[in-house]
């Protein structure tokens, strides 16, 4: 690998604000501990090694893993028994509502709550002055207040909160809180943000409306492009979208007479919420308990603290009564943190034999009013593009700006869905230019396993080539591509995604995930873990691992999760980290106990511990299972008699990974998942309506611990990508004669159109298992990766069908129709069709060529 050239300007915005704050974007070797002292490398936690490795079953074969088990909480959900945050009602509980700004950008001159406070049944009103402390998920970009103190930055920004006897009364009281505003010029788009630095959206920015700028270059991009046989340029627009979970944000705060705060919240990051509550409320962390009830969907939209959590807590502290806040659907649109709108310009080179050469990207990102995860988003927009294809040289220049709109953040596939769309369209265009099948181009450039990307990311297992084979076969690609009648088409795209990041959001040397496991004499196990099940099934993963290791039925395992009083820290449900990290922690805890149980039985029966099998509630020796046999309950009792009370802990901390340059750890993951999609579309050229009839999704998840859950994630991801491609637009009305800018176009699920089941394509999930050496039983992520290729696969399919290039989202009928009328689509379609006959260039070919990566020119590889 060529040495990366980091052209980044000197840090400004990221500079730590506190003297002892750790480095923002540490290099692989420069991790620090709180207090600023380096921790010696040899002192770092090292995960235990297990004979046979982590990828293998504890016995000869799997008994639980890989079976189509129910999710352990599934019945409670479908029978209505699961307790969500809004199901919680405490005695004497008050209800609170937030007063929100009616201006996109305005100074708050005065807030007069006297009339509201005079209403019978209204108990308290708080404003920004009551919660002045700044917070934010990324420690060095903390630019949010629970309630705006001096100015509001978008229509819907929270200004005050009122607690009353009922929700209705609180809503009525909002109308009696009078806010005097001084409207300010509002920034509504990327260009305005850059052209008007003087209209400053966010005073915490380092300069103008700049949220973050990253420029990284790996290898000689200009030289590679100059030496290419073809270079294609393209400008793309990725529209913003929001998560739209079924459950709106909700929390209940209960500050008791002893000064102890309990907060139930629909969050996916209980631990980070715990930390920020302490900071903003000025309450010691050890006097706060955060509990995550069952969550009704999150998708990244609940992965940081929100105004409601601080306000409910503060109002509970003021009134001495429990306080609930439930966001309306409209407020969920304002809380947002959804997909960033991005303008992406790519130049990509290729050789006649299909080898990708240089990739040059310029990306502008609309961040909304606050930072959120924006620092990471800006890096991810470039850093996560460097697999599954090898590229000789790569440069990206990404700029995130502040605008007067709800804050964007991490939505499923954080930061990398937008560039993936653009890049996979680029590859399709390049394939057309050189007359090569687009699957073949992807296959030839597949980076392979156990290698390194051009930006220094370590790739371990990699089943991408097999994913391509699977979708090619399942979709009957060879008989369809460029061969279907006008109006019908197929398209392909690929992607990769992280299985967790190798750093915690606040740098520290403690584990990223911890598990405590308790075995009971009754033959029951309880797993205590901070992990956050948001519907993806991590609770079930924990139970399955324990069941596999200790021979229990799934029903005999209790999972106690995401309760900061009861469970060890897990960082939460984001960046597709749970199965990999918490799974590893749980595997260690369970194996420690399994060793004790197996050792006890081996001593009793005089055999080797490796000869003990625990499965299906039975413990036996493989040597003489008829006679050397007992229930696992008896085995636990024998073990407890020998070792004392049975319990264990397990933890996971990823190896230090990433490139040795500023920002080089961002995008580094202990394992990457890979995906390929083929989409098939039927288009109506008269109306511009595109029906996506099928998406074949092949995903390398390492090993499917629960195939039915993995398929659910694959289908859900492909659906969500399809939704962004075809329908969703998180957009705002421009200023007009009688109203100002920044009004959401339609903050409801009627106007913000997520596709119904009738609109949804037939989704075919094809699981590919590459068995990762470091994943729990070889597992990698499945929750976010399979979203990425949906969008470009559909765009490429529309091109195959109609001869138009959809470079802007969404591909809704008005846009498709205007593209059809803009040029001679039919001629473009005929031309593309003419190129299909071109046989693949001799040389590296066949389905296995890309897999090993051997025999390639090696540019960009280590």
């Amino acid at each position: 690998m060529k040495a990366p050239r980091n052209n980044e300007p000197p840090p400004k915005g990221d500079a730590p604000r506190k003297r002892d704050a750790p480095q923002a974007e540490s290099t692989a070797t420069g991790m620090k501990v709180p207090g600023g002292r380096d921790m010696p490398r040899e002192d770092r936690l090292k995960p235990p090694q297990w004979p046979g490795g982590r990828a293998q079953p504890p016995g000869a074969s799997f008994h639980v893993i890989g079976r189509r088990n129910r999710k352990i909480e599934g019945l409670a959900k479908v029978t209505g028994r699961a307790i969500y945050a809004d199901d919680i009602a405490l005695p004497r509980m008050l209800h609170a509502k937030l007063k929100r700004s009616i201006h996109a950008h305005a100074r708050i001159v005065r807030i007069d709550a006297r009339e509201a406070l005079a209403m019978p049944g209204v108990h308290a009103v708080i404003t920004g002055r009551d919660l002045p402390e700044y917070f934010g998920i990324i420690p060095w970009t903390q630019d949010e207040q629970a309630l705006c103190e001096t100015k509001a930055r978008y229509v819907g920004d929270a200004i005050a909160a009122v607690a009353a006897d009922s929700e209705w009364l609180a809503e009525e009281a909002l109308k009696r809180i009078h806010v005097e505003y001084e409207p300010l010029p509002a920034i509504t788009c990327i260009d305005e943000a850059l052209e008007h630095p003087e209209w400053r959206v966010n005073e915490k920015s380092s300069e103008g409306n700049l949220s973050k700028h990253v420029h990284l270059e790996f290898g000689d991009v200009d030289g590679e492009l100059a030496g290419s046989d073809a270079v294609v340029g393209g400008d793309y627009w990725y529209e913003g979208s929001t998560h739209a979970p079924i459950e709106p944000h909700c929390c209940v705060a209960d500050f008791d007479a002893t000064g102890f705060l309990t907060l139930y919240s629909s969050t996916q990051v209980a631990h980070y919420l715990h930390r920020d509550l302490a900071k903003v409320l000025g309450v010691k962390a050890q006097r706060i308990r955060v509990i995550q009830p069952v969550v009704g969907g999150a998708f990244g939209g609940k992965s940081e603290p929100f105004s409601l959590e601080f306000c409910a807590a503060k109002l509970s502290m003021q009134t001495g009564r429990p306080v609930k806040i439930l966001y309306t659907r409209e407020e969920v649109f304002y809380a947002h943190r959804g997909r960033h709108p991005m303008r992406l310009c790519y130049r990509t080179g290729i050789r006649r034999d299909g080898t990708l050469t240089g990739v040059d990207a310029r990306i502008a990102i609309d961040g909304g009013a606050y930072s959120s995860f924006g620092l990471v988003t800006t890096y991810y927009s470039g850093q996560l593009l460097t697999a599954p294809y090898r590229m000789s040289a790569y440069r990206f220049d990404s700029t995130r700006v502040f605008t007067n709109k709800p804050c964007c953040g991490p939505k499923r596939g954080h930061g990398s869905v937008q560039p993936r769309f653009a890049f996979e369209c680029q590859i399709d265009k390049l394939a057309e230019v050189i007359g090569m099948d687009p699957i073949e181009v992807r296959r030839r450039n597949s980076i392979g396993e156990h290698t390194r990307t051009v930006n220094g990311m370590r790739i371990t297992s990699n089943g991408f080539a097999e994913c391509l084979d699977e979708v090619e076969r399942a979709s009957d690609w060879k008989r369809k591509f460029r061969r279907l009648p006008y109006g019908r088409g197929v398209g392909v795209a690929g992607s990769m995604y992280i299985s967790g990041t190798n750093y915690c959001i606040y740098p520290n040397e403690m584990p990223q995930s911890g598990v405590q496991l308790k075995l009971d004499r009754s033959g029951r196990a309880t797993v205590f873990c901070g992990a956050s099940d948001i519907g993806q099934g991590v609770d079930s993963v924990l139970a399955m691992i324990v069941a596999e290791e200790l021979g229990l039925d799934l029903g005999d395992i209790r999972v106690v999760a995401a309760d900061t009083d009861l469970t060890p820290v897990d960082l939460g449900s984001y960046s597709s980290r749970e199965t990999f990290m918490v799974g590893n922690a749980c595997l260690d805890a369970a194996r420690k106990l399994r060793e004790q149980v197996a050792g006890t039985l081996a001593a009793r029966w005089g055999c080797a511990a490796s000869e003990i099998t625990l499965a299906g509630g039975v413990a036996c020796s493989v040597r003489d299972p008829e006679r050397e046999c007992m229930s696992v309950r008896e085995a636990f009792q024998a073990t407890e008699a020998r070792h004392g009370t049975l319990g264990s802990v397990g933890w996971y901390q990823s190896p230090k990974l990433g490139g040795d340059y500023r920002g080089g750890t961002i995008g580094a993951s202990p394992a990457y998942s890979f995906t390929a999609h083929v989409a098939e579309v039927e288009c109506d050229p008269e109306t511009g309506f595109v029906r996506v009839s099928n998406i074949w999704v092949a995903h390398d998840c390492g090993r499917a611990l629960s195939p039915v859950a993995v398929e659910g994630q694959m289908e859900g991801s492909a659906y969500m990508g399809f939704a962004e491609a075809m329908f969703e637009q998180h957009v705002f009305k421009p200023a007009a004669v009688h109203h100002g800018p920044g009004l959401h176009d339609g903050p409801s699920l009627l106007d913000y159109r997520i596709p119904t089941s009738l609109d949804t394509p037939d989704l075919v999930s094809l699981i590919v298992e590459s068995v990762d050496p470091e994943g729990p039983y070889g597992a990698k992520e499945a929750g976010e990766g399979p979203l990425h290729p949906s969008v470009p696969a559909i765009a490429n399919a529309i091109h195959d069908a109609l001869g138009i290039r959809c470079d802007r989202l969404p591909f809704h009928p008005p846009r498709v129709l205007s593209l059809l009328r803009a040029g001679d689509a039919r001629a473009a379609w005929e031309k593309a069709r003419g190129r299909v006959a071109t046989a693949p260039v001799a040389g590296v070919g066949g389905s296995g060529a890309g897999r090993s990566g051997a025999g390639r020119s090696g540019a960009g590889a280590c």
Partner: protein
Amino acid sequence: MLTLPAFEWLRPANLDDALAHLANHAAESLVVAGGTDAVPNLKHRLHEPRWIVHLGRLDELRFVRESEGALSIGPLVTLSAIARHEGIRRDFPSLARAASLVASPQIRNMGTLGGNLCLDTRCTYYNQTYFWRDALGFCLKKDGVRCHVVPQGRRCVAAHSSDVSPVLISLDASVDISNARGSRTVPVDEFFVGDGVHNNVLVPGELVTRVTIPAASRGLRAAYQKLRPRAAIDFPMLSVAFAARVSDGGCEHARLVVSALGAKPRRIGGLDALVKGRPLDDALGEALAEAAYRQCRPLTNVAYDDAYRHEMVPVFVRRAVREAGGIA
């Protein structure tokens, strides 16, 4: 979540009781049948009535009667019942079709014919929460004085969004309207007025008590086409109802109604001269499409590209004519 405003709940036992209440308190009352439109509108504070008059117990308004003279339907018949009804499917398939395209199965199970007929007009600046409308500065349909669709406009242009109404006009249906003093009959074609604030002829105290489709409309070649972004849920962005009497000598008479563009359904004019004696074929479809395109002017009242909606008028008219003509 959004709360409902405070109101008193009335559930009259029969039509006379309902009309008696309305005779005195119509201005302060909201009449609700299925509630599928009223409830979200209440949550948005678009209606703030003192009384809600629920018609659920008025079984006398829940009927489908087929007679030689006509088909009459009670306003409380649900949309799913209409979509399912054998006689309606046989004789008036475009009506069954329109009912089946409303929203979603759950909403059709609750929503009624009368409710859909009297559906409040819709606008991207109106069907929003109180907060949103406050941020907007309100509009002349509710709480404000300005129109945001037509900035100089003094008349509300919120979109008529009923699926069944254009079809009923195309089928020459009429409605019986009652109040405490008596009743009158109005052709559906004359039921709507071009004022988005209140787009029908009902005066305070009146209720629709019957919808009648004349026997003469049996055997019309009819069709309904609806433009909606999603395959369910959405209100029409554009709707087209077409019905023609065709004999051996070609078309005798036709009605073409285009709606979801303005406050009332637009009946395309000058049709008799166009269709008389011509076969119901693509050439006629083209002529009708052109006439409709010229006569329709979509506005930005619904959140969908208005130029595109205009472009789709001829497309959907052609499709309606093809469907009516049974052209594959």
